[in-house]
């Protein structure tokens, strides 16, 4: 299995398009860094000496909103409760809201690039089976004394490995760029998280690793779907097209449905953002972390049932 993954890895990394993908990621990190640096230079953020008063004012306004609106809308209610709890924690422990840019805030700012990493992972997932069929090399691959399941599994694991590498590149490179441009934080910082009605402090660097992984769950699921389409239909453009459409539209469409219908919670995209259970509010009332994980596993299993079922039985006539 190890050797099969090495094979797939070599095939991916000998492609020029892969170098272009990595290059784009690196350039984007530098670009975002330059943008933030420029902003910082032109209007440097001042420490707000009156932050305590501001936060108190914010709390009062939030509490007003909570009593007026919160009764009807559970989501808004949770949102305000969270805001209030976090702000009260700040007052109690004398933690001013962060105003300076530093390495960790930048690693956090680089998070939108995860979508780009996801895009690349989807492209790789969509091509990894389909391209073997379109080039005809699938024939020389399947006449080896290796079970077809193993060949497909090695391809899927390679996709996962590729996705994780992309995340690692963003995380590591943005910490390097962040360190060079903004330096270390002047005082100890920790992340304030609101979980199960309580406020907890977490280590920033580790919390960021967690955030990176949590925000790539939808990408994992969509890459898995792209892989399934690639294996079933042997057509990489179809796989890329459908997957990207769902990546960009799926979330929005699900949120629209979620506001009207309760069954929307069974839709894949209602469950892909697990971070709401650690630090936020779920899209539909009554959804729990275990429910979402269960739904994700069901989808994951179905995708692989199709991918492996079709691949193992197929008559190869390419």
């Amino acid at each position, binding site marked *: 299995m190890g*050797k*099969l993954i*090495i*094979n797939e890895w*070599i*095939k991916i990394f*000998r*492609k*020029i398009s892969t170098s272009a993908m990595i290059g784009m990621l690196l350039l984007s990190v530098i670009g975002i860094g330059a943008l933030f640096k420029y902003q910082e230079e032109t209007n440097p953020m001042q420490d707000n000496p009156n932050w305590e008063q501001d936060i108190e004012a914010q709390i009062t306004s939030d509490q007003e909103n909570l009593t007026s609106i919160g009764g009807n809308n559970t989501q808004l209610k949770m949102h305000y409760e969270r805001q209030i709890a976090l702000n009260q924690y700040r007052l109690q422990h004398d933690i001013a809201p962060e105003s300076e840019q530093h390495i960790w805030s930048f690693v956090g700012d680089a998070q939108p690039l995860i979508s780009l990493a996801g895009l690349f992972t989807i492209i790789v997932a969509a091509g990894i089976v389909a391209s073997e069929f379109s*080039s*005809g*090399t699938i*024939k*020389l*691959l*399947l*006449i*080896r*004394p*290796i*079970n077809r399941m193993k060949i497909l599994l090695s391809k899927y694991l390679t996709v996962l490995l590729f996705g994780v590498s992309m995340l690692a590149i963003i995380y590591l490179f943005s910490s390097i760029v962040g360190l060079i441009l903004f330096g270390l934080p002047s005082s100890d910082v920790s992340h304030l998280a609101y979980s199960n009605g309580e406020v907890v402090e977490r280590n920033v660097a580790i919390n960021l690793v967690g955030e990176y992984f949590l925000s790539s769950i939808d990408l994992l699921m969509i890459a898995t779907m792209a892989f399934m389409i690639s294996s079933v239909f042997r057509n990489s453009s179809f796989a890329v097209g459908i997957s990207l459409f769902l990546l960009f539209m799926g979330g929005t469409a699900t949120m629209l449905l979620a506001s009207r219908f309760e069954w929307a919670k069974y839709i894949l995209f209602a469950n892909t953002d697990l971070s709401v259970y650690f630090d936020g509010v779920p899209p539909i009332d009554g959804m729990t972390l275990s429910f979402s994980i269960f739904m994700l596993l069901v989808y994951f299993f179905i995708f692989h049932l199709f991918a492996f079922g079709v691949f193992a*039985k197929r*008559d*190869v*006539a390419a």
Partner: protein
Amino acid sequence: MSAVLTLENVSKTIKGKKIINDLSLSVNEGEIFGLLGPNGAGKTTTIRMIVGLMGITKGDIIVSGKSVNKDFEGAVQHIGAIVENPEMYKHLTGYQNLRQYARMHKGITKQKINEVIKLVQLSERIDEKVRTYSLGMRQRLGLAQCLLHDPKLLILDEPTNGLDPAGIREIRDHLRMLTKEKQMSVIVSSHLLSEMEMMCDRIAIIQQGSLTDVQQVRGFVNDDLLDYFIETGSLNDAMDWLQTDWNAVITAQGFTIKAKKEDIPTLLKRLIDSDIAVYSANQIVKTLEDRFLEVTAQKGEIE
């Protein structure tokens, strides 16, 4: 001689249509075996079933004692194959391609890879991208890929497709050498008769998914009875006994008969004794092509 490959009553049905119908044959150690048939007869389907690219609807295929149905990995490890064109990863070099395949078999050393490269004479260009290779070079790289794991059975589907005469000759010489020196068995498929005639020891003719005939190449061409054309002057009375005794076909310049070689002098003597002018007597060499068309035409009439 023991059989390396046996097909036992193999059938293949795709979408209700019978592509291969109850095909049985066996290939012996060290022989070059040809699958001959018109396009669409089922040669490639047969090959795809042997190497496991397609499922077998009915029957079984045994490679070196292992069933493709029950022990695919055991069976296919004895096979090296090119199915249709030798498609390689074009963005890798020839060497990197071979490394890919080497990783999928057990115990293939770098030495072995280099040895095979030398054998197919690709040493000079092996570190260039496959994209830059000519068809002949790809064909040779394909052959190298089959030979890495020292298979007992080599399967080449249309190995000379698109090659120039020099390339065809090269492939032929390689195959001869492999069967002689390494005791490998080879299956080649083709619809080109002249080529099969030069390459193979035995040929199976497949038509519409069924086996029509298996013959030794020499026997395939040569019957006991040979065709002769005797050029003569006017035949007169001799016409009668020629037609009754020899079943001759009379033409304006003479006649043709089917006869054993030993009978020709007797025939000529009798002609000369009857005062008939004999100008020449020639054997009509029947090519494989004639035989092939003959066999396939008969089959066509039956159906």
